[in-house]
């Protein structure tokens, strides 16, 4: 039945819109890149762009040295608070894992990492999920095919295939996106090399990276977390389609779900620890400030007298949200 669900999407206008958005997204990424390790520039007081004209290797080595210097400084920190102690421990680990301190070409990984989890990509994915998943069941109501489906032998297969699409669409689309970006980046910056070096070589702020990850490990973690976020959104968008009767109601519900946690972070009466978690777990920040979340260390947060690693707690909450979304979808489908 999943094949038929896909056929329905791609035969409708929404399918064409999704394809256009996806092509625009993939195409526009050709022009989007971060400042490479071999480049350095800043704007002066007159807002003129000042470029460092030294040799690329010299600039890159300078940047790497600065990063290593910062990590060393943190490793030797005398601060006694929990967060600083955590950073000190991680920094020591990073220094021990450091293979050598000379610059090596990591341009491919720097750009691929930036493109793989870019905020514009996240925005386009949310639009696609709204178009496809928020209408995945309401379209059946609008086309009045709902009753035929619900009185057919394969009613359950048809319904669960819709939930399946809520998981598959974000995963497969993101997978395609990554594949395309891999090829584009390889064409522009050469084949990926030096992926086993430390992740701090491609990160502008190396302090907050939560472990001595290699570049490949670090990017893999980010991709897995991004899939987790997109699947959560796909499942929740489908859930709203199952429990509402119109496209507007479904989309509104989905947007409220995305925006509410962010709005709650501004409610001063909420306890600080709750706001701290909401600050990280709300989907606005997750999607549009993703670089500061995945693979980072932000210390602990206290609940009921117990210490929890803030980022791990947020990831667990994300997992709980997916499970809750799937469970609620199954419950609502059983009512049909």
């Amino acid at each position, binding site marked *: 039945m999943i094949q*038929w669900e896909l056929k329905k999407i791609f035969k409708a206008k929404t399918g064409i819109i999704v394809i256009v958005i996806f092509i625009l997204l993939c195409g526009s990424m050709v022009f989007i890149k971060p400042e490479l390790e071999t480049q350095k520039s800043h704007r002066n007081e007159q807002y003129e762009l000042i470029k460092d004209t030294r040799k690329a290797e010299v600039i890159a080595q300078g940047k790497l040295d600065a990063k290593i210097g910062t990590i060393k400084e943190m490793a030797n920190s005398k601060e006694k608070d929990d967060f600083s102690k955590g950073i000190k421990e991680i920094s020591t680990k990073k220094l021990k894992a450091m293979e050598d301190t000379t610059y090596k070409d990591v341009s491919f990984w720097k750009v691929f990492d930036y493109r793989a989890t870019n905020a514009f990509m996240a925005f386009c994915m949310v639009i696609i999920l709204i178009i496809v998943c928020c209408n995945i069941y309401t379209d059946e109501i609008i086309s009045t095919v709902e009753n035929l489906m619900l009185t057919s*032998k394969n009613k359950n297969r048809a319904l669960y295939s819709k939930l399946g699409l809520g998981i598959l669409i974000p995963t497969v689309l993101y997978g395609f996106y990554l594949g395309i970006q891999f090829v584009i980046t390889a064409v522009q910056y050469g084949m990926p090399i030096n992926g086993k070096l430390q992740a701090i070589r491609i990160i502008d702020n190396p302090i907050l990276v939560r472990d001595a990850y290699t570049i490949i490990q670090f990017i893999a973690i980010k991709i897995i977390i991004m899939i987790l976020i997109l699947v959560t959104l796909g499942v929740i968008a489908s859930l709203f389609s199952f429990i509402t009767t119109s496209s507007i109601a479904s989309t509104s519900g989905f947007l409220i779900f995305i925006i509410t946690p962010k709005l709650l972070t501004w409610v001063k009466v909420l306890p600080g620890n709750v706001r701290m978690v909401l600050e990280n777990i709300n989907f606005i920040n997750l999607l549009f400030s993703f670089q500061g979340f995945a693979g980072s260390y932000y210390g602990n947060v206290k609940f009921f007298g117990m210490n929890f690693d803030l980022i791990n707690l947020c990831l667990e909450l994300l997992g709980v949200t997916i499970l809750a979304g799937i469970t609620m979808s199954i419950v609502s489908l059983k009512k049909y």
Partner: protein
Amino acid sequence: MNKLEIKKLTKTFGKKNANSNITFTLENGVYGLLGPNGAGKTTLMKQIVTLTKPTSGEIIYNGQSIYEKEDEYRNIIGYLPQEFGAYKNFTAKQFLKYVAALKGIDKNKASQKIDELLNLVGLYEVRNKAVGKFSGGMKRRVGIAQVLLNDPKIVVLDEPTAGLDPQERSRFRNLIADISKEKIIILSTHIISDIEAVARETIMIKNGSVIIKGNHKDILTGMKGKVYKITTDKENEVIDIQRDYKVVNLQRGADITELRVVSDKMPLYASAQSIEPRFEDVYMFYFDLENTKEV
């Protein structure tokens, strides 16, 4: 032989009884379901096709509750809902293939059956045209074709001829007559002539309850002495009759007006004479005129 038993079926929505203690048994043949809007016909049909569950009572097919093995039961149902639509961008053939997949029909068998049915409903020539470009009648025919895909034992048709022109209605009646062998066909409609033409029995529903179930002959026999013809040449008398009786038909001539009325008692007019009842008189006798869209 198929046997569908409806036993003490009640469906409530809040405080309103949409169906109240309905009991009857259906065997192979066409059954007309007649009643005004809001009488509870669609609710009853929705329960028969498992779209909604009864508040109390049961529906038994060949000795087994339909909810015991729902998937198996749904496999023998063909349902044409009141509001039937299809995916506008699908061709007639693609849409039927999709419904065949929903009904769990093997791909190869489905393809052959779809061609057969498209021929039967006269849409074979336009099978590769998008359903969105079809007229209302053509869409309805696609609906009828999808009903028959799985060779159902129970066919439930909710207002199947609504919006069809006379030619299409006639074609539809013939089609129903052709397929009615070895099937239970439940046909809900406001169009009394459709029921008169094809139904073996009629079930009349009012305020959620069955008020009459029987064959046309018995129903019409029961109406004897309740249908009258009154002729008059006075306009004020016409107005009085319309106010006091249910007028089935009013025919104005050059000088006199002829009224066909239904009434329990002989109307108190000198010209009143008892006449042979017709099926539309039965509907008028039990229901109000405003609910009869077409006869």
